[in-house]
């Protein structure tokens, strides 16, 4: 039973880098499978061959009939099941350790590099920060290649679990009968063979089947949970990215537009919608973007109206540079509200 310690230690280090459902799955594996297998099931199947009797005195008949009835013992079957079902998790753990080690090597390289060019180093460190595996608290972030590995891990776990349950059904069914008939050579006739403790074994077969189903269910829940959360994050990130790009595009549109500002203010007292729709035709129109643009326009018109009521002659006579600053400042002021939501979106992206 000491053999499980090795697997146990590996899986415990994988527990730190799993989701909540993953941790529950690992606990179920440890307590309801490994513990029960070692503490109970192995004793029940302990005397399976010595307690197997056939009603014949023919030497060898008992052996061959036991072999025919149980090609592989249930306990060994469950040991293989546990090992196969744990293997994807170990591969995922290996991937994490690999990434962490690569990052540490890069850190070491950065430290050893002489400062050739400050800018170059800044670039490298920026690139490194963006692709860092760990976040501020030192937890490993689940994204990119790591997320892919985790998803494959869950998929393979599910496949193995299903395969073993189906295989168990086709090998033995889910119930053990007290008596099996057998007429394999060298048995002289159809003999009756009786196994030991069929009821107790049936109880444990059903128990292990129940635990395997629970594990399977946990895997499915985790897949759904992960997929749902990542879709949600992706949508929010995309939305915040669009909101970030919209004011940027507007401010970009203002800068080249500035030389014409004095020309336009000379025209009418009516508040202009931001002219140069041609500027906006550069960027691709889509509904969310135009909504943001409309909101921006509205805000800017309100600011301009207020500014005009205070004294717009002074504004008109201003030179281009301060004029660029004013609308750009408006942009920045008006985008305060959207900036907060941007930050929120970005914070959430970092977690799983």
């Amino acid at each position, binding site marked *: *039973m*000491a053999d*499980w*310690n090795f697997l*146990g230690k590996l899986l415990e280090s994988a527990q730190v880098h799993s989701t*909540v459902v993953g*941790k*529950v799955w690992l*606990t179920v594996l*440890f*307590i*309801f499978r*490994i*513990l*029960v297998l*070692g*503490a*109970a099931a192995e*004793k*029940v199947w302990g*005397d399976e061959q*010595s*307690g197997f*009797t*056939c*009603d*014949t005195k023919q030497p060898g008949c008992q052996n061959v009939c036991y072999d025919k009835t149980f090609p592989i013992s249930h306990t060994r079957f469950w040991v293989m099941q546990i090992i196969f079902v744990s293997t994807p998790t170990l591969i995922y753990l290996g991937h994490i350790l690999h990434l962490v080690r690569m990052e540490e090597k890069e850190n070491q390289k950065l430290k050893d590099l002489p400062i050739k060019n400050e800018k170059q180093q800044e670039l490298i460190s920026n690139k490194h920060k963006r692709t860092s595996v760990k976040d501020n*608290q030192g937890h490993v972030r689940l994204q990119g290649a790591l997320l892919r590995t985790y998803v494959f891990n869950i998929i393979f776990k599910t496949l193995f679990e299903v395969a073993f349950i189906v295989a168990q059904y086709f090998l033995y069914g889910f119930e053990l009968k*007290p*008596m099996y008939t057998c007429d394999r050579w060298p048995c002289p006739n159809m003999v*009756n*063979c*009786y*196994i*030991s*403790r*069929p*009821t*107790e074994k049936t*109880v*444990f077969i059903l*128990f292990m089947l129940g635990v395997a189903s629970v594990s399977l269910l946990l895997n499915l829940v985790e897949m759904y949970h992960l997929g749902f959360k990542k879709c949600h994050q992706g949508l929010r990130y995309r939305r915040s990215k669009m909101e970030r790009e919209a004011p940027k595009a507007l401010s970009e549109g203002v800068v080249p537009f500035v030389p014409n500002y004095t020309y336009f203010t000379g025209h009418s007292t009516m508040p202009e919608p931001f002219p140069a729709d041609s500027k906006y035709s550069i960027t691709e129109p889509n509904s969310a973007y135009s909504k943001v643009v409309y909101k921006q326009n509205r805000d800017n018109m309100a600011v301009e109206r207020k500014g005009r009521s205070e004294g717009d002659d002074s504004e008109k006579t201003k030179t281009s540079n301060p004029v660029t600053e004013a609308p750009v400042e408006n942009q920045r002021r008006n985008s305060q509200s959207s900036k907060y939501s941007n*930050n929120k979106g970005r914070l959430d992206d970092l977690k799983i």
Partner: protein
Amino acid sequence: MGDWGILSTLLERVQSHSTVIGKIWMSVLFLFRIMVLGAGAESVWGDEQSDFICNTQQPGCENVCYDWVFPISHIRFWVLQILFVSTPTLVYLGHAMHVIQKENKLREQLASPDGPPKLKQPKYSDEKGHVKIKGNLLGSYLTQLIFKIIIEAGFIVGQYYLYGFVMVPMFPCSKKPCPFTVECYMSRPTEKTIFIIFMLVVACVSLLLNIIELFYLIGTRVKRGSRRRVQRVTTAENPASLSGPRWPTTEDALRQNKMNMEMENYSLGGSLDGAKEEKRLLSGH
């Protein structure tokens, strides 16, 4: 025996987040159940099938008679009992760990200067990791206690209906392929009876501890809640009554003084008429 290490590690972690009685319960579980099971009972039941003899030479008759008399061995029954009785505790541990993790993150965010200022304070845990059992956590704790009680009672009743509490040395058995009603003899009936009664008593003690803990928790919470309701501070909204107790504790007096000072700072004249005070407060400035 080493397999129980996993369960004991997990249960030890829960111990720090349990009440006193919960800790006693866990010690009883470890000492009187798991240890006795491994060190004593397993050797008593070690030869249960090999020494199960029936007075017949018919092959297979012993097997089926043993299977009929003992559908599940006592040892396995107790292993499952320990496992199922520990499971609610493990679920509570998961909840407690989750809460502690969330609060640690909250504490980190509050400590770091760049995070947005949150108004929430960590509610359940303190700096050292101790957890106060209240609110959601209390609900979870009570639920796991109730489940433990139900499961323990279920197993005790189940054991009674399966085997009774005394082992007799001889069982008559007439299942096929036994040719007639054979007599089957089990090994060590008296020793097994002693262990059965011992494990039964320990199970009843655990059940009793759970029930006591449940009542203790409910009692203390109810008392705390009613005490808070009785000691009300005199404010404009609930003026002092002539019959109520005046100043049962110094902290109540201090609280009342503080409120009075605040009220005086608000009102201009410092009138003792409650209604006028209220009007002034409500009219606003």
